[in-house]
């Protein structure tokens, strides 16, 4: 009897921040472990995207572009992993969870949706980071990309800020997907290539008109990529959109805005979805 009571109390105690962290770990776990069990992802999500990145490198070579553009493509191609992850494994994932019947369980449980989404982000970040590292390593090796890091500390800071803001944005958009049904998948599909275009994944964002580039800066990867390119390529600063310090300050602003927005919007959308009966609906 005492043993049963002790076992029960083991599960009872997780509340507050402890529950939040346990939820994050619990949602990240199937992503990380699932990938280890399904080895084909190495081929489909690391090797194949690498070949797609190489295509853009050879386009630049075919049109006689300066060699630093090859580096721009490699870095941009690596960062596509994070955008894909936010689109497919954060935003539209809630729609998929709804279709699988998990969403109602998430809402019923005492954990917060922020923790569940953060768990998805952490688990997804693992695969995305591996893909990004593989693209950078293989791309740099195959195309002999030369790096000249101006400030390692700033580079790490920019990357972390860009990721925080990006995943904050992912959480915020995920809340909108709570209300969506089958259109969620198509909207994610629709947001893929246009963002590659406006965020300058394969070319410097400075090539656009100032106001177009400024509008595109609402997507954290736009400024994150621009700042990273400025910090790691000798000619990056000349092709940069804004000064790195300014971009860091804007990224900090985006982090605050998106994380706060995610918290408020998630709570609001969850209430709205419950009121309108969208949590368990399955408009096939």
């Amino acid at each position, binding site marked *: 009897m005492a043993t049963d009571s002790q076992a029960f109390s083991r599960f009872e105690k997780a509340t507050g921040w402890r529950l939040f962290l346990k939820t994050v770990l619990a949602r990240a776990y199937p992503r990380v472990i*699932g990938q280890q069990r399904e080895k084909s992802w190495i081929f489909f999500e690391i090797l194949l995207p690498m070949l*797609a990145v190489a295509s853009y490198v050879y386009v630049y070579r*075919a049109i006689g*572009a300066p060699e630093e553009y090859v580096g721009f493509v490699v870095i941009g191609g690596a960062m596509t992993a994070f955008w894909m992850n936010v689109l497919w494994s954060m935003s539209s994932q809630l729609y998929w969870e709804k279709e699988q019947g998990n969403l109602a369980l998430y809402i019923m449980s005492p954990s917060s949706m922020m923790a569940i989404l953060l768990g998805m982000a952490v688990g997804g970040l693992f695969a995305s980071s591996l893909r990004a590292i593989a693209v950078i390593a293989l791309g740099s090796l195959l195309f002999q990309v030369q790096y000249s890091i101006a400030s390692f500390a700033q580079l790490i800071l920019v990357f972390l800020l860009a990721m925080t803001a990006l995943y904050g944005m992912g959480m915020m958009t995920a809340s909108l997907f709570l209300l969506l049904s089958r*259109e969620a998948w198509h909207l994610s599909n629709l947001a893929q290539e246009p963002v590659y275009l406006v965020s300058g994944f394969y070319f410097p964002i400075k090539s656009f008109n100032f106001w177009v580039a400024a509008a595109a800066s609402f997507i954290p990867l736009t400024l994150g990529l621009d700042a990273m390119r400025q910090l790691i390529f000798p000619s990056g600063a000349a092709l940069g959109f804004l000064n790195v310090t300014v971009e860091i300050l804007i990224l900090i602003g985006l982090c605050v805005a998106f994380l706060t927005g995610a918290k408020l919007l998630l709570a609001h959308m969850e209430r709205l979805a419950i009121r309108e009966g969208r949590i368990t609906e399955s408009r096939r």
Partner: protein
Amino acid sequence: MKQSEPVRSFTMATWLGWQVESNWTDPFLFAIYVIIKPLATAAILVVMYSIITGSDYNSPLFPYIYLGNAFYTYVGAVMAGVSWAVIDDREHYKTLKYMYIAPINIPFYWLGRGVSRFLIGTVAVFVILTAGVWFLHLPLDLTQVNWGLFFISLFLGVSMLAMMGLILASVTLMVAHHFFLIGEAVAGALYLFSGAIFPLEVLPAWLRPIGFAMPITYWLELMRRSLIGEVAEAFPTLAQFSNLQLIGILVGLTIIFALLSVVVFRWCNHRARELGLIDMVTNY
């Protein structure tokens, strides 16, 4: 009139695929969805080309890249359309097991599911070509087009892509649901070897044989020759082949892929049944 099982499977799947692809929203939003994604992909290449060449659209390289990319839309559309049907039925609608016990022919059913993406791809190709003629001085003169060659090449190319899609669908039976679409990942990777957006001479010598073994390379060359003959003549890659020889190679490779698709389907189908993967659900 009683239809044969393959014909019935194909026509019903075509109707079903169109419903799945199009009835999630109103026609206006659907039209925007169909147009924006391919235009963004084309715009990425146009911007890359413009910033390096100073918008030199008169160079034969521009129509080479532009036409290759436009028709490559079919590669992603058909291959992803056929292979996505497996994931959609197995893990989303959970109907693949019912398809297996219904009186239908599974490969023809999958091919039918890919038709809707082919139709959407056709609209996308038309929009990309029209935008090229109107805004980028693409030298496409409809009175000079070799329409006979165009339609023969298009028919052969789409048949070849359908066979490649069938191979991919068979492989998809064996793998988990990845967040990224397998069909698009494979199409993205083949972008490198098919000479779609740069002549094969740009590739290192050791990679070129892969390009020459790919039917897509010959198909895109035929499409370019049928629309703007002088563009194809400006590049030596396949200049030694006449149109008839290229058609012969394409027919030969399409037959090889058709035979291969039968073998791969039989093997994967058998393995998937043996391992109990027909109703597998993977939700990371």
